[in-house]
């Protein structure tokens, strides 16, 4: 384990940060990768601390986010390669995995990845029943039966353009 008060390793790895997941695993990340996350950047600017503890991100999810950050911080890769990496990154992942990724990237403010993941989730949600969405997101149906029936009947998406034609 590397700590900040050990002068030697700190100078040697000046450009590195250690990020700890909620289950205690630690990841060594280059600073250039870490600052792609807006919230990590803020933490690094505010304090000298080279160890960042993330209390709400598990190690599996954090490993994925770090893989993403490191790839995007690599100046040797072309934008095209990064784009295809993004595609690969979200493809084939379980809905469950994506859910945790989206929350983690939202917390860490990695906007680009967050949107990529959210879009992938939307693709999976296509043609699903409302019961499926509620179950997968673990969302309580907080409608009263009457309110739900009313929404089913009214359809919030329909435009009222009748006024334009009937007068």
């Amino acid at each position, binding site marked *: 384990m590397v700590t900040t008060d050990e002068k030697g390793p700190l100078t040697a790895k000046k450009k590195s940060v250690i990020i700890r997941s909620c289950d205690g695993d630690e990841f060594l990340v280059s600073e250039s990768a870490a600052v792609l996350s807006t919230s990590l950047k803020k933490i690094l600017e505010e304090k000298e601390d080279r160890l960042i503890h993330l209390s709400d991100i598990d190690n599996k999810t954090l490993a994925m986010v770090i893989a993403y950050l490191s790839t995007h911080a690599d100046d040797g890769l072309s934008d095209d390669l990064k784009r295809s990496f993004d595609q690969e990154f979200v493809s084939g992942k379980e809905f469950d995995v994506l859910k945790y990724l989206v929350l983690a990237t939202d917390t860490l403010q990695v906007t680009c990845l967050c949107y990529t993941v959210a*879009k992938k989730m*939307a693709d999976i949600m296509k043609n699903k029943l409302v019961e499926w969405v509620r179950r997968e997101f673990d969302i309580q149906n907080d409608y009263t039966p009457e309110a739900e029936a009313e929404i089913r009947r009214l359809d919030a998406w329909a435009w009222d353009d009748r006024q334009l034609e009937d007068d």
Partner: protein
Amino acid sequence: MSKWADLPGDLLNVILSKIFGKDRHTFSLVCRFWNAVAATSPYRYSPCLMYYLRSKHMWKFYQYNSFFCLSFPELENAEIRCSKHGWLLMSRYDNSLFFFDPFNNRKIELPCKHPLGYTTICFFHPPTSPDCVVVGIATPYFGEVVVKIVVLRHGENKWEVNKYRHGKRFLVSRGAPVLHRGLLYFLDVKGNIATFDMSKRDCKLRFVIKFRCLRRRRIGSKIKEHFLFKIKGEENLFAVFLMHEERKVNMFKLLEPEMKWELVEDIGDKVLYLSHVSSFGDTAYLKNMENRIYFPRFHGDTVVYYSLSSGKYQSLDQNYNSSNNSCLLKRWDSAVWITPAPTPDLFTDLIWCPEVDPA
């Protein structure tokens, strides 16, 4: 309450930008918070521009800032003639007509083919309503100086055919007619107005043409594209004429009863969506959309609008900015602005005329 119910509104909007049609309805039904996000989403208040990508056999919908691709095999070889209330009126090469609701995949066949050569075909009420009437207008370029108007009412299987001879040639424009104060209003290619009363049969004043509607008559021959429309909350009818090759925008308000066009330079907080088969105006939902006219034109992948405040055509990404609507822009002349139709009642009758089997 789980943390998923509290996904930030921004993120839920990203999800909304990828789903369409009935998936959005599902989204609103999930919980009250998701419904609140949907209700205030810009997608909720933006009409879709729908057009056919022949190369891919797909229909593309452009809405707000996103594209959605859908496939409708039943629309192959059919052309959109009019669009209202989320319904399309379409014609096939054999002159048969049908209504199609692309949001709920509903179809209504009309029992009889339209008589050949009608330039303009329109309807005003949803085709499920007994008030629905289909009207066709034809004005031949050569020979007999005549205006033919045909009417097919809901529940009927025969067109009512009317012919009006007139001393002066009136060539109906491609711009969709408008129903206004119970009368059908339509334009000729020089910006003149005709009205037709659909309710009265055998009445001398049923069909009226007004010539010299434009004060500067000479500009009439310079009009390249016509759009006639209503704006929600406004009493008068409006028209936009695109002049010359560069498509200079001229907007007018119809003064009645004198039937003269009065130039309008500003529409305040309104926004217009114009296409040949459907045009309408509404109050802008977003402040930055005010005083704009959206046309079915693209610059790269972004839609082009005309800003009445700057007098210029501009693209959403600001890469295009010109008073000239030039060849740099992709034109989708057959594209149509459409707004989602209400979800159908289960028991809606999808038959135009009960006595006759459309097959």
